[in-house]
């Protein structure tokens, strides 16, 4: 076991995957010589050479589209889109080509590609550099979406994503790059679609992923002092997501909060809330509550951004609301 930063865990996963499989190639803006905008790909050019590690021009549509063709041609491309906000420029290749090729060509081929991209705010980077858009991709049959919350999962899920035959959107979080965590000498594998119980509990369940996991754990710890036992599930994968793990937890706690950094409205939490509200309808002691960013572009100024993004306090408030919920509480229209 060694302590590693999230960014370095990704670096190691890339290096190990490239070592293990010569068909893995990397390309993206500033990923080769400069070592990546967040230093995540540092050293890989030197290790694997300019044929397999390439800087591209600022051409997101073609980065993603070329990955599709390269994957169909026998490579396993891992490409980087520098900020998730710029995925807007790569949508066609991902949604109309990568996601559909396997199905629409009748299973003739697979498209084993990974798009790494960081989402999230917290850096006062403003409305065009802070978005969490993973719900879009989860809505597209044929894409997989993962969002690791810690170094060990980042390593394992990236290895799983690279090994996966299908296109995976691998969402990183800018504020997590420097976060530390244990990463074993021989890391444990993680299957895409398997959630992780980050904290066992019995009174209420928080389902979350990415940077919000830390906030949820803090909230859970604060409740422990009051003798309230909060279970925290780190979803890790968004598409597919681990419905069974959530149902099992809710069967026990009968109360569910879904928390993420993305805007609440029409976000990932909507699907989870809708699905669990349906499947566990008779079991729930309170409505499923959601915590996410307020409905606005992520603002620049420190105070505004802080107020907009969800944090521990918002999660705690939601847990309270859930615990305090009375059967006759009715919010009228």
């Amino acid at each position: 076991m060694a302590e590693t930063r999230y960014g370095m865990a990704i670096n190691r996963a890339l290096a190990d995957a490239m070592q293990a499989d010569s068909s893995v190639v990397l390309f993206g803006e500033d990923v080769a010589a400069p070592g990546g905008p967040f230093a995540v790909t540092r050293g890989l050019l030197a290790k694997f050479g300019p044929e397999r590690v390439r800087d591209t021009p600022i051409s997101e549509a073609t980065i993603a589209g070329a990955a599709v063709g390269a994957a169909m041609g026998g490579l396993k491309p891992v490409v980087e889109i520098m900020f998730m906000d710029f995925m807007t420029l790569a949508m066609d290749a991902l949604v109309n080509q990568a996601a559909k090729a396997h199905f629409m060509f009748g299973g003739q081929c697979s498209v084993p590609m990974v798009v790494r991209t960081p989402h999230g705010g917290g850096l006062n980077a403003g409305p065009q550099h802070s978005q969490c858009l993973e719900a879009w991709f989860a809505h597209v049959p044929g894409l997989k979406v993962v969002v690791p919350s810690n170094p060990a999962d980042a390593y394992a899920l990236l290895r799983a994503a690279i090994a996966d035959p299908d296109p995976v959107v691998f969402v990183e979080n800018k504020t997590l790059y420097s976060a530390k965590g244990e990463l074993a000498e021989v890391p444990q594998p993680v299957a895409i679609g398997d959630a992780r119980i980050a904290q066992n509990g019995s009174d209420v369940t928080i389902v979350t992923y990415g940077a919000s996991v830390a906030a949820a754990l803090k909230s859970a710890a604060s409740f422990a002092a009051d003798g309230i036992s909060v279970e925290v599930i780190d979803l890790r994968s968004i598409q597919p997501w681990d419905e069974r793990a959530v149902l099992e937890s809710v069967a026990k706690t009968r109360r569910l909060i879904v928390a993420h950094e993305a805007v609440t409205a029409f976000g990932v939490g909507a699907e989870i809330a809708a699905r669990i509200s349906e499947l566990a309808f008779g079991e729930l002691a309170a409505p499923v509550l959601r915590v996410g960013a307020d409905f606005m572009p992520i603002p620049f100024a420190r105070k505004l951004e802080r107020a907009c993004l969800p944090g521990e306090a918002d999660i705690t408030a939601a847990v309270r609301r859930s615990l305090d919920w009375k059967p006759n509480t009715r919010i009228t229209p």
Partner: protein
Amino acid sequence: MHLNQQQLLPLYEAMVLIRRAEERLSRLFGDGEVPGFLHLSIGQEAVPVGICAALQAMDTVASTHRGHGHALAKGVNLDGFFAEILGREEGLCRGRGGSIHVADLRVGMLGANGIVGGGLPIALGSALAHQVRRTGGVSVAFFGDGAMAEGVLHECLNLASLWKLPLIFACENNGWSEFSPLDRQFAAQLGALGNAFGIPAVQVDGSDVEAVCSEATRIVAVARRGDGPQILECKTFRWRGHYEGDPQKYRDAGDLADARSRDPLAVSGARLEAMGIPADRIRTLERAVEARIETAVASARLGREPDYAAAAADVYTQVAGGAHG
């Protein structure tokens, strides 16, 4: 440059295959047997045939919404081709894609494409795979004149040039982008554009399969030996509407007459005649092609309806475990 008999005859035959297959599809469409939209390349056969004749089996092509010619010239399975367009389980894509997504990866046909310009970066990625894996292969991106307006062309010209990829930009310039003429769609000449990126470009008479084939052979060799991307612009003519059923009100009689005046089959037919190939030998060849087509149509018609459960289970590559949705 002229080809000899042994060289020209198979190209002629390949063009006849595309022509007759699409004529057959047109009738099937008229009879309601083809679901969805149908875009025919009748009149343009010399382009895919001339280019694909310059390719090897390992070479790859990414195609367009008007992709039957590319598919057939690259050698996709004929039965599977018809079965797909008729929406059958036996189709190349098990009835999930149709005309606009015909693909046969076994022969390097990476798929027709419903997105104008969508095949360009796919072909580029395929060329990258050839380069990195040192397959010795080249990749061809077919695209129409209308597609030239998409930004992705620019990105691909640039990246292909920077990375010296074995990529052929094959433009089928038929002068129309749906219902709009080229001069109202694109302000540049493709050649000048390519040259700006340091990519050599040639224009050929896309109705003359010999001209297409000889230029294609030359530039494919250049690309194959590692000298970077090449542009081949083929001037060609769309005989039919943008899609079957298009009344073409936007098109005047002169334009249509012009189009029909350059028939790739007539051009090559005249050459074969001049070489002294007897007319009945040609006719026999044509009959054989027609027979193959009828067999394929008959077998497609007998095909099964696609299996929904199989489709639903095949959104992701089937490996152990993993439910989605």
